[in-house]
């Protein structure tokens, strides 16, 4: 038999041909999957490139002051991102303030107290919440949350906490508080399911040691288990934050769409994603479009950073404890 390396020249015998095809098969498979995997890199690079290129006008004109200016004036062509960054951060922070205690509490319940089958069942139901589309949250919020906030919750908040600058001024229903609340509900399932997994991954020995030392179940849960899983829980919070930052539809339906910075949570605001959704198809000048795209780039960069931190934290915990598959 010839020992020549596989080439396109006609081989001497049927067996040799077969061997060649087998060998090429592996290479081809590797090549095909490699090409498709590389398509992902191509697409992402293209995305960055497009965002960067199309925001060139405003990047050159305003530079970094774009991030600090508060005016958004399409008539005078003065564009500043600060109101939108403010709105995005405030609503997301609010979402965390409401969602994290609620979510963590539920996760502790599911991981520590509930019997396994109940825990699995409830976790499944809560994970279904994550599948509900954003626009449906928005739809419900307009007709249930907004009237509730405006007519019942805001007056109560104003009368009890009105001394704080956050709860002053008229309440329209729509506004930063409404957006923050909807976001809180939307990120709940993420916080709960990831925290629950992380808590379940804490080794049994830790719990048993604590109980052996005389701690109650609650003390064990709060002083031993949760701190042990701290990194992972914080990671889940960051993931939830990343989700909240990019949320578009539910926010734009309830935030009031006003690019102003207001201390009061009752006031209307605007988020980066919401302004792009509202104004992109109508920006009538190149620099206006460039400003919107630059906003998109800013948002993208923020979510990249937050996601990266989240992954590191979650990785840290799951490595620490004896892993879950």
């Amino acid at each position, binding site marked *: 038999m010839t020992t020549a390396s596989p080439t396109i020249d006609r081989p001497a015998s049927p067996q040799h041909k077969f061997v060649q095809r087998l060998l090429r098969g592996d290479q081809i498979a590797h090549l095909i999957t490699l090409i498709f995997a590389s398509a992902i890199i191509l697409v992402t690079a293209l995305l960055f490139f497009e965002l960067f290129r199309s925001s060139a006008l405003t990047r050159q004109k305003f530079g970094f002051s774009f991030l600090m200016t508060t005016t958004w004036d399409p*008539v005078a062509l003065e564009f500043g991102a600060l109101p939108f960054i403010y709105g995005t951060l405030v609503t997301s922070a609010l979402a965390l303030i409401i969602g994290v205690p609620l979510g963590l509490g539920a996760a502790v319940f599911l991981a520590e107290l509930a019997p396994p089958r109940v825990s699995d069942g409830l976790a499944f139901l809560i994970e279904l919440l994550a599948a509900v589309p954003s626009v449906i949250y928005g739809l419900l919020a307009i007709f249930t949350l907004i009237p509730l906030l405006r007519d019942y919750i805001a007056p109560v908040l104003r009368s009890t906490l009105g001394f704080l600058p956050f709860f002053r001024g008229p309440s329209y229903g729509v506004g930063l508080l409404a957006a923050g609340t909807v976001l809180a509900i939307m990120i709940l399932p993420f916080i709960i399911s990831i925290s629950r997994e992380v808590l379940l991954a804490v080794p049994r020995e830790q719990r048993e040691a604590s109980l052996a030392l005389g701690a109650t179940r609650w003390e064990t849960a709060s002083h031993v288990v949760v701190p042990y899983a701290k990194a992972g829980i914080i990671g889940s919070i960051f993931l939830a934050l990343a989700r909240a930052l990019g949320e578009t539809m539910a926010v734009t339906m309830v935030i*009031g769409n006003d690019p102003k910075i207001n201390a009061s949570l009752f006031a209307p605001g605007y988020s980066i994603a919401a302004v792009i959704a509202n*104004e992109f*198809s*109508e920006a*009538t000048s190149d620099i206006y479009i460039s400003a919107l795209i630059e906003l998109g780039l800013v948002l993208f960069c923020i979510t990249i950073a937050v996601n990266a931190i989240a992954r590191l934290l979650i990785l840290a915990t799951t490595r620490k404890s004896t892993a879950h598959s």
Partner: protein
Amino acid sequence: MKRVVSIVAFALGLAFTSCGSPTASSDSTKAAPARQILINGAGATFPYPMYSKWFDEYHRKFPNIQINYQSIGSGGGIRQILEGTVDFGASDGPMTDEQLKQAKTKILHFPTVLGADVAAYNIPGITEELNFTSDALAAIFLGKIKKWNDPELKKANPSVSLPDKDIVVVHRSDGSGTTYVWVDYLSKISPEWKSKVGMSTSVNWPVGLGGKGNEGVAGLIKQTPDSIGYVELIYAIQNKMSYGKVRNSAGKFVKADLMSVTAAAAGASKQMPEDFRVSITDSTGPDAYPISSFTWLLIPSKIEDPMKKKALTDFLEWMLTDGQSMVEALSYAKLPAEVVVMEQKAIAQVQ
């Protein structure tokens, strides 16, 4: 199992790629069906109820012509026709000279109807019609008049017990011709507005909540007590919203309706410029409603596809004749006769 899945998927794929309009399924049984022409347009929400009705009627008359109009706001209409992503645009704020310069093919303006921006409000407990002076409107939208029982408002409405509540201003969050008409008027009657805010399809509002489209603003006003905003007349009527009278340049408080809007256009139609771009806000005339406006279809002067061009020009002719007979049912005013004649001549400019 796998074979079943792949067969079903293949069948579905075939079905969807060849799927046409569900209500026009009878067409497919004919031997040689007329070619379906889809024309895409986008723009103003101001005339949307009218366009929606027109395109629906036109499709009934000519089942093979589908005109898909999306109301995304005049700003959107202008932008998309400049980009060339739609076949025609629509706007109630005429394009500026700079915008026209950006166009690769010349864009022609064709007025379609006359409409009005009204000050719609939602004050629980108040059913009477309110009177608004032009100064009051400017002050409300500037954020200077903050409460409903402000002395300025009480002066114009002595018999109404206005509540001691904060005024919630509602404006547009998107680029809007309705906004353009409103701020065009405010700029004319309030020097402070002109210098502080100015006029365009999208402005830097001093106060207020933003709604998307006339629909969004109307929706917000309906849902929010003590609110006031500007919407096109038909939206206020169709949604049974209260809207006030505005004092015109002759000093009379006028309510927006067919007569007062037609009166507003009376002077302008005699001196209509060639390109049909004109503002009729704050017009003279004792019975004129001061916040009236034409609204325009933005048609490129050169259309590549001959079938689309014919469909569009045919529609324009229909719009100027049969179409005009439908406008009053939706509370828009007909185009003045002189304008119609001018337009019929101008259709020839579409190549």
